[in-house]
């Protein structure tokens, strides 16, 4: 057996042939793992099934952000504009 085939066989044994359930995958990839940037950018699409089961696992629902702009600078700009609108509105009162 060649070294590469030996390595491949050993690799299969390292992780095994486990039946990875969707719930465990969601728990792992959406709520764990290294966060290396200030903003996580995720688009929401057709995740009803996942979202329903997220509540069972108490996954962080903020991993799913419906309707949010994926660009952090645009979000910051929107937040700033919203703050300025609130200040103008309160100044008029």
């Amino acid at each position, binding site marked *: 057996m060649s070294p*590469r085939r030996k*390595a*491949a066989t050993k*690799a*299969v*044994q*390292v*992780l*095994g042939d*486990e039946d*990875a*359930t*969707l719930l*465990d*995958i*969601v*728990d*792992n*990839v*959406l*709520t*764990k*793992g*290294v*966060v*290396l*940037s*200030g903003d*996580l*950018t*995720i*688009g*929401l*699409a*057709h*995740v009803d*099934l*996942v979202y329903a089961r997220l509540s*069972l*696992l*108490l996954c962080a629902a903020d*991993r*799913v952000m419906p309707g949010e702009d*994926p660009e952090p600078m645009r979000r910051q700009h929107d937040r700033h504009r919203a703050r300025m609108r609130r200040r103008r509105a309160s100044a008029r009162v």
Partner: protein
Amino acid sequence: MSERVCVYAVVSGAAGPLRGEGAAGERLRRVRLAGLDLVIGVVPRPPRATTVALKRYDAAVRRLMETHGSVLPARFGTCVATLDELAATIRDRREALRRALRLVRHRVQMTVRVFARSGRVPARFIAEAYPRGTAPGRDYLLRRASESQVPGAEPLRTAVRKYVRAERSVRQERGRLAGSIYHLIPRGAAPAYRVALQHAAVAANLTVVVSGPWPPYAFADGGW
């Protein structure tokens, strides 16, 4: 919309070329930034959290386990605009990431979901999770330390202690789910770990669901 650099993992101990594709079918690359090796993929837009994408992401991270001694999986959706931005982000965390790489070297994660037998989590399970100290300050610290402990799970921990190199736990107490425990164990120890844990669950009259081995997601960020 400009391209995004999506991070799959911080890695070390490479033992071969990268295999397979990323979650969006993109080619994966290993890059060296700030003294660390990262696996990235360049995509036209941020990833969407579909079931298919999440499964493909997990599959890509699993393949990294086959060719690296240490893998710190990134959270799904970890994207930046440029490699320079990524390098600046990780530079300050270099030492913490190196410690985490040493911790997870040649190790995998097992996940244990602990359920109450019926109805809600028994009151005795909750009560034992809040030990009483001898002073208010100590009480507070003990309570904070125990907040994440899964009540009633001590027999399970005892049974698998010899395999466990690190543990994370989350109390849930939602319906029948008492909590989740994540154990970091040596690669290859998963079968023996499962047997020991399941025997302990039966003896303690606990309902548990064990899954794994997984890449060490719960140990990648040094605490969450």
